[in-house]
Every structure is written in structure tokens, then in C-alpha cells.
């Protein structure tokens, strides 16, 4: 029997995620495990409930605890020949910072957990570096560079580029200095757009307090003040935070640059010139040159808007229960929008409480069926088309590829017309006398069958989805090494056995990432549902209809109802679900764990 490891190891990212999902409850459990781990390291077997209670209830105790336990963990790990990122002073600083930004508390917890994870265990596999290791390294380097650096390096802690100038790297130093001045000016002068400032004022504005309603109008001149715009206030606040992060990175880089020059000098090398630095950007650091614009674009066009939309989930932005100017004047309301899922408060809360679980359930059923039917349908079709002896393979393949060539929305709208009340299918059924009224195949009227509509969307989806899998599987089938089949034949395997033992495992091995992305894609399959059924049949009194997925419901709540804050909540839930499923399934798949090793 394996020894049970007394140290609780946890993936830091999962712990943080669970803490968010459980609205902080898991964070307390995680903290309890950390307290327990420290005790275990000290071979202290007493109960840690009392210590945990003190941590939660006694105001100043956490400061003491984090400081002393940080140092304890460092010492105890070093005794076991392990490198530790935890230090009392670091934890103290982070704890103080967390009193201003509460989420910072996850950093010391993550660092300490990372240290525990790095301990060798009786039953461990190789441990992987955790997210917080670089943060620990960052703080260690700052200390190391200050104590080991030259006067110039020490100066560059306060004046950007001072170290470089000290080492006669004037242009580089000058650029650093100019950037420092520019950012400081940006922060102090607070330039504004449409009356909303950046800089330190933007940080203050993030509280969304002291809002001005505006609307001061001068009939003589036609001049009009338009008051506070909370949308811009949040956006500019985040931009300012991004500028501060860039400032910190520049600060670190300027110290690092000076320290590198120190080290070069120490080993008798001449510090690099500006020209050499530029040349390196086209040579060994070319990846940096190419990736920088991409990263900036991703930050500006993807990360910032995403953070902005997430932030809206915690506000009253355009809340239908608020008055008039909801898109410009709103305020933070904590997790109230999330709580509506459970309490049903507010006009949309009623909708969310009663429709969230049915919509979520149907989203999963849809995603599973839509994925599997298209996946296996595609494989079967590919096998049939690639069957030896079949004549006209290219013609068949072309026919199915044609369905991809036709834009999906045209196919879907055509099917919608075919199955509509006056469509050919209903006309034919009535002409044959099989029915005396039009059948609502797609649930477009409230009285139509929900089950029939659900079955129909899955069937119609096969029409637009199977050719993709067929095309991909055809390529895979053509690339299965012939010697595998040869070996199978030598061993006397039947065609069926070879299919189940060679073909299918090979295809599944290659296509697992596709299968996962296809599943997630189907969870967010807006086109198929919206264009075919519009989410119908509708449920009287609710936005979410019988075939609505989370994503189409999200569309209705935001576009039709204008409740962007509630929409953001649904969006975040959808993201959490898809991200969790993707991470878990992908990390457990053979394609991930046994990369390049299909056997």
C-alpha cells in the first residue's frame, strides 16, 4: 500500500477557479489546507481548526501568520533541499496590498501552494511548474539585482535608464528615461477623451462614485455637457491599470538591462551597444520583434474588451430595472447579477432563475448529440467513400464538399423554408393526406412540439456538420501507415477487428482535439439554432425558448432586452463551463498525454 502523502497538493489555477465559482467558499477550504500543510511540514499533528478560526476572525492575526509561516515554509523547504518562493516579507507586502485589492490574496496562497507542490512525494509523478513560480522568481531577482548590482543598477530602481547611462548606453538609457517621463506625465496630467480622464483620475473613477448626471444646456450657444460616462470610466480605468503594468515591466527590464551590463563587465565583456541591440531584434530576438505587435493587438482588441465585458457583469449597466440613463450612468453591484441565478430577483432574475437550468441542460444535450452525430457520421461517410473498389470516389467527395462551399446560413435558411408551414414538406404531407394541418417541425410557433424541434435541429445540423468531419477523416484515413494493416493481416486479424483496433483508435487519437473543439463549438453554436428555430418554441413570459442555447439566450437578453450586465453573467457561466470541460477532457486525452506516440 502506498504511503499517503501528508502534504495536500493542489493545482493553483484550479483552486483559484473553484474559489471564484463557489463565490469564495473554496478559498477558505484551500486556506485550511495550507494551514494544515504548514503543520505537517513542522510535524505538528494537532488540530488546526483554532488557528484557522483566528485567521478568519482575529483582525491582525493574518499579518502575523503570513509573515511567520512564510519564513517557516522557506526554511523547512530549504532544509529538504527544495527551492522556496515563499518569504515572510514578500507575504507581508502582498497581504497589505490585498487590503486594497482583495484578489491579491490569491498570490501568497498560490506561491505557498506552489512551494508545497514542489516537494517530492511518495506517490508523485513529475511535478509541473505552477503559475506563481515566475512571480516568486521575479521578487527574488529584484532583491538579487539590487544587492549584486552596480551603483547605476541601484539608481535605475528610481530613475529609468540610469544604469544604462552609467554603462554609457546612452540611447537605450534615454529611451527608458523618456518612457518613464511619458508614463508619469500620463498618470499625473490625466489626458481626457469626451470628458473622461485617464491617469490617476481614471483609477479614482473606477469606483464609479461621484458621478455627474450632466445635461447642462445653454440655449444661447447650444452647448451641452453630457455628464459622466461610466462605460468610458471603466474602460479608461483598465487602460490605466494596463499602463501601470507596462510601467512595472519597463521598470524591471531597465534594471535587468543594467544588471546584464554589470555582469558583462564582470566577465570582461563590453556592454552591448544600441545598434547591437537593434540587430539582435532582427536576429536571435526576432521572435520578440514579430510577437510584440501581435501581443499588443491581442491586448487592445481581445484582452481589454474581454475584461471590460467581464466587469459589466458586476455592474448595473443598462439594467432594465434601473431608470433611464443605464448605459452611461451605472454603478457596481457586486455579485448581485450572479446571485439572480439563484434568487430570481429583478425582472430578468425571474427569467434566469426559471430558465437557466433548462437552457443549460438542453445546451449539453445539443452539444453531445450534435458533436457525436456529426463525428461518427463523418467517419462512416469517409469510410464508405474511401472503401476500396468504390467507383467515382472523387464525385462523391465533391458532392459532400459542395455542402461546405455553400455558406452555412444559406443552407440553414433553405432548410427552414423547406420545413416551414408553407414549405414543400408540409405541402407534400398534406397532399398525401397524412396530416390535415401544417406540422411545426422547427418550433416556430409557441404551440409547436418542443421535442420535435429539438430532434429536427440535431438532424439538420448533421447535414451541415458531417461533411467537415468526412473531409478531415478522409485525410487521416489516407495517412494511416499501411504497415499497421499489413501486420494485422499477418496476425490473421479480420477486417472488423482491424477497423476497431487500428482505424478507429488512430482516427480518434488524431481527432480528439477536434472532437473537443467541436463540442465547445457546438455549445456556442449560434447560427444553427438562431437561423433554424430562433430558439422556439417560445415559452410565454420568457425570452428563452425551448431550443435556445446559452449563447442564443445571451443574444436575446442583450440585444432584445439590452441587459448587458445579465448577458455578461450568462457569458461568464458559459465560459466557465466550456473552459472547464475543455481543460479536463483535453488534459486527460491521449492526444495530450501521449503526444507523438500513437501505438
Amino acid at each position, binding site marked *: 500500500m502506498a504511503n499517503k502523502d501528508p502534504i495536500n497538493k493542489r493545482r493553483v489555477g484550479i483552486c483559484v477557479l473553484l474559489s471564484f465559482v463557489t463565490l469564495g467558499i473554496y478559498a477558505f477550504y484551500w486556506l485550511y489546507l495550507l494551514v494544515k500543510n504548514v503543520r505537517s511540514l513542522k510535524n505538528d499533528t494537532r488540530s488546526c481548526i483554532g488557528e484557522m478560526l483566528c485567521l478568519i476572525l482575529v483582525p491582525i492575526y493574518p499579518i502575523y501568520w503570513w509573515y511567520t509561516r512564510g519564513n517557516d515554509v522557506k526554511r523547512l523547504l530549504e532544509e529538504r533541499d527544495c527551492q522556496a518562493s515563499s518569504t515572510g516579507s514578500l507575504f507581508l507586502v502582498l497581504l497589505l496590498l490585498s487590503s486594497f485589492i482583495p484578489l491579491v490574496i490569491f498570490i501568497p496562497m498560490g506561491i505557498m501552494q506552489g512551494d508545497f507542490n514542489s516537494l517530492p512525494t511518495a506517490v508523485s509523478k513529475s511535478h509541473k511548474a505552477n503559475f506563481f513560480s515566475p512571480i516568486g522568481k521575479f521578487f527574488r531577482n529584484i532583491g538579487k539585482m539590487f544587492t549584486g548590482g552596480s551603483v547605476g543598477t541601484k539608481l535605475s530602481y528610481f530613475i529609468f535608464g540610469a544604469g544604462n547611462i552609467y554603462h554609457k548606453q546612452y540611447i537605450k538609457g534615454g529611451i527608458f528615461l523618456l518612457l518613464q517621463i511619458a508614463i508619469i506625465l500620463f498618470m499625473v496630467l490625466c489626458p481626457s477623451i*469626451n470628458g473622461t480622464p485617464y491617469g490617476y483620475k481614471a483609477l479614482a473613477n473606477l469606483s464609479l462614485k461621484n458621478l455627474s448626471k*450632466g*445635461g*447642462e*444646456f*445653454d*440655449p444661447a*450657444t*447650444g*452647448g*451641452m455637457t*453630457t*455628464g459622466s460616462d461610466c462605460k468610458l470610466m471603466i474602460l479608461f480605468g483598465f487602460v490605466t491599470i494596463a499602463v501601470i503594468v507596462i510601467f512595472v515591466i519597463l521598470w524591471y527590464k531597465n534594471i535587468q538591462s543594467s544588471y546584464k551590463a554589470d555582469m558583462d563587465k564582470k566577465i570582461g565583456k563590453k556592454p552591448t551597444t544600441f545598434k547591437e541591440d537593434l540587430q539582435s531584434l*532582427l536576429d536571435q530576438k*526576432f521572435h520578440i*520583434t*514579430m510577437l510584440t*505587435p501581435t501581443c*499588443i*493587438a491581442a491586448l487592445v482588441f481581445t484582452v481589454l474588451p474581454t475584461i471590460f465585458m467581464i466587469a459589466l457583469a458586476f455592474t448595473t449597466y443598462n439594467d*432594465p*430595472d434601473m*431608470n*433611464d*440613463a443605464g*448605459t*452611461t450612468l451605472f454603478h457596481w453591484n457586486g455579485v448581485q447579477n450572479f446571485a439572480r441565478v439563484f434568487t*430570481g430577483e*429583478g*425582472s430578468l432574475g*425571474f427569467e434566469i432563475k*426559471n430558465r437557466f437550468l433548462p437552457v443549460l441542460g438542453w445546451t449539453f444535450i445539443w452539444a453531445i448529440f450534435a458533436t457525436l452525430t456529426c463525428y461518427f457520421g463523418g467517419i462512416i461517410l469517409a469510410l464508405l467513400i474511401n472503401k476500396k473498389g468504390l467507383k467515382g470516389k472523387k464525385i462523391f467527395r465533391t458532392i459532400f464538399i459542395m455542402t461546405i462551399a455553400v455558406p452555412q446560413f444559406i443552407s440553414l435558411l433553405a432548410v*427552414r*423554408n423547406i420545413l*416551414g*408551414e*408553407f*414549405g414543400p414538406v408540409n405541402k407534400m404531407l398534406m397532399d398525401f393526406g397524412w396530416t390535415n394541418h*401544417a406540422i*411545426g417541425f*422547427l418550433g*416556430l*410557433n*409557441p*404551440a409547436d412540439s418542443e421535442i420535435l424541434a429539438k430532434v429536427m435541429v440535431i438532424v439538420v445540423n448533421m447535414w451541415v456538420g458531417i461533411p467537415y468531419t468526412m473531409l478531415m477523416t478522409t485525410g487521416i484515413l489516407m495517412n494511416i501507415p499501411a504497415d499497421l494493416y499489413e501486420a494485422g493481416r499477418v496476425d490473421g486479424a479480420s477486417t472488423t477487428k482491424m477497423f476497431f483496433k487500428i482505424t478507429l483508435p488512430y482516427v480518434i487519437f488524431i481527432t480528439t482535439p477536434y472532437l473537443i473543439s467541436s463540442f465547445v463549438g457546438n455549445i456556442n453554436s449560434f447560427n444553427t439554432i438562431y437561423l433554424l428555430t430562433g430558439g422556439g418554441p*417560445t415559452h*410565454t*413570459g*420568457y425570452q428563452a425558448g425551448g431550443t435556445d442555447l446559452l449563447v442564443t439566450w445571451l443574444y436575446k437578453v442583450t440585444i*432584445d*432586452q*439590452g441587459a448587458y450586465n445579465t448577458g455578461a453573467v450568462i457569458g461568464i457561466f458559459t465560459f466557465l463551463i466550456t473552459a472547464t470541460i475543455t481543460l479536463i477532457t483535453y488534459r486527460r486525452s491521449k492526444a495530450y498525454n501521449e503526444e507523438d506516440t500513437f501505438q
Partner: protein
Amino acid sequence: MKKLIVVLLALMMVTAMFTGCGTKEKGVIRMWVGEESAEFYQKVCDEYVAANPDFGYTVEVKGMDTGSVAGTITNDPTAAADIYTVAHDNIGKLASTQCAKPITDEALIAQVIADNPASYQQVIYSNLNDVKYLYGVPYISQALFLYYNKALVTDEQAQSFEGLREAAKAAGTKAITVTGDDGFNMSFALLAQKVTDHSTTVKIYEGADSASGGSKGESNCQGDDTVAIYRWLQAYAADPNGFKWASSDGWHADLDKNNLGVLAVIGGAWHYKTAAASLGETNLGIALIPTFTLTEEACEGLTGVAAGDVYRGGTFADCKCFMINAHSEPSKYASEQQLIKYLSSKEIQNRSYVECLNVPAYTGSAEFIKQCFDEGKVTESQYNLAITQVGMAEWGIPQPFITGTLNTYYYSKNAPSVLRAIVDKSAYPTTGDIILTETESLEGIRKALYMVEYLWMHGQSPKDFPANLPDKA
């Protein structure tokens, strides 16, 4: 060298991305109007600029989708045009979200007062810091009316719902449908008026005040006439040759002469082209929304109505207005008002009718419409289209939503779906988790109508129902 080229190309790409954002041109007044009239108003504005050298601005007119333009403006008013046109029910929302600037030019205000009917003048003002200002200048009138299949429905049959039913029975189909089940398109039942005296007990935000702390006015949806009308409609919808909701293929498919799903549809002027395509110009009849006669069953247990009372389907009789963007430069303000005064004058409204078939909003426009027909400037169906809308204005009220909240309460709070549930005799949910299992009985209809009124006034469903209905919310 290759790498240098790659870097330069990447830089060019990034630069191109960031230079996409242009700046507003000075010396230009930008204007958004309905797509169908953009060319006309560009021509008129160019003429005005040429005739007034002192005006000092050129005008750029752009056609926008009338249905969604208000949303586009509230999403980003800084990017919207200096002058834009919207249906008047958007005034409250645009004014309260500081997307619109008050109009103060005395000559323009005098023109608005002199030219427009009193009903319009009640819904084009809003408050800013408790001061009442004119915000919208009417220039197009619009109302719902009836399109019908002239090949199967006589003009006389088209005058009443009963006549339509008779025609539908002969054709083996349904009588009538609507273009949507929302609060606007279903107004024919809610706003129906007694033929003899134009009376109705329905009130929607009557006397509402957009000042800070202002009231939502008075609403009523529980009158005996409303109950009787919905009971009548329930029966009419249950009739195999009566009312039906538009099919999944759209109302135009129902109206199509080949499908014969319905013989008539209640719609607006903006549905004209589609209706004509469904029936053909020669088969397309246009008439006032028909009358209907309350039955014994509809009036049973009610005191305010009597069997045999005749009602005509009602409508929201709206107007489209010019408005000035709050973010427009103050230096343009006087010129903008000067331009709007010209564009909303009777002369330009008349030209707009002849060239774009926009029904003028000013009082007494029927005379000009008739004159145009007599002079052969418009076809018979174009004449009917305009004169019917003018006629329907007498059977309707403008949407009285002078604040953004009231607009949201009326359209986005499930009241239309409750009204649909009554017609369908289906169940509907409430916030108190009370599921009403029927809307067929008098009590069920009363509860549903109480709920509709409560939604109008409070923006959410009632948690409970009063013991005795009708009850004022």
C-alpha cells in the same frame, strides 16, 4: 533584409489598423434619415445650401435603418450624425440618455406649434433638468391599417372582421393576421375604440412627466371594454376562419396569393412593397382597420359594455421626427435648427410625399394628398396608402413614452406575451411563481390584464393578485 521587410510590413499593418478611426470633418452637417428617403433629402439639402450661400455648411445625408437607428445612436452618440430622424417614441430614451439636444429656435418652435396636430405635440417634448424642451420636429406620419386580398374580399367585407371571416370561410382559409406579436403590432385590439363615440378606457402613461421625480402618469388596462374585446378576440382566434398569428414563414407567406394562409394583414406603410409582392399590385386592397361587434359571450358578466357594441381596431398613430445630436458641435446649433425648419416645412413634406410617398405629418395634409391624386401625381394605391393612414390617425393615439423607462417598461417587460397568452388561452408565469393555468375565464382574463397594467407601471410582474379585480395598480 527579408526580416526587415517582414517587420516593415507588420508595422504597416498595425498602422493601418490604428488609422481606421477618422475624424469628423468640419464645415459639414451630417444627417441620418430613413434609407428610402436618403436620396431625396440629399437633393433637398443640396438645393438649400446652394440657395443660401450664408448657410456655411455642406450637408451629408446617409440612409439608416429606421428600426434600429435609435439603438445605434444610444450605443455611441459621439459617432452619430449631427441631425438624425427617429420615430417619436424614441424621444424619451434619446433625451434621457443625453443623446439629443433641445430645440430652442423660436421660429422653428412656432412652426411646429402651428403645423402639427395636438396629439403629436403632446409627445415631442421632454424635460432636461426639470425644464421642458422641444426635442423632436415631426415630418412624417405613420399608422397601422389593413392590407387585404381584393380578389377574394369585397370592399364591403373589408370593413369588418365579421365580413373578413365570411370571405375567409368562402375561401377555406383564415381571415386576418398581424406582422408581429409585439406591443406595437398588436395595438389593434388594445387600442380599439367604440365607433359611436371613439371611446376607450385604455390609458397608457397618460399625463406622464419626464421631469426628475416625475410621474409615470395614468395607465389602465382593466376596463370592461378591454376585457370584452379580448374575449371577443379569443373567440375570433379560435374560429377556423378567424384570426391567426403569422406563420413561421412570415406574414407575407400567409398573405401570398398562392398559399392563401390569410386574406388580410394589419401592417404599416413600410410593409407595402412586401404585401404588393405577395398579392400583386392589382389584388392589393388597402382599408382602415376593420370594425367588430361585441357578442353576448364577450359581454357576459360585464357592465360597461353591451352585446352589439361596435368597435374599430385601433393603432399607434406615430410621427417621425428630426432631432439634434447632443454631441454635435455648438457652433453648428443655429444652422442645424435653420435646416430642420426648412426640411420640416409643409412644402418639403409635400415634396417628400410626391417623391418618396412619405405621409406628411402636418394637420390637414389630406387635402394635399387628394390634390396629388386628382392631378395624377400618385397612383390610386399610393393615394389609398396615404389617405388611409391619415384616416387611421383619428382612431389612434401616439405612443406616449416621453421617458426611456416607460419605453422599456412597455416593450421589454413581457406584457405583449401576456396579451398573446390571453388570445391563445394559454398559461403564463409571474414573478411570484404563480402559474396561471388558464386565461379563458373572466377571472383569468382580469388577472392577465391586471398583470399587463402592473408591468407597464412597475416594469415587473406582480407578486400577488388583489382579491377583487379590477383593481388599480
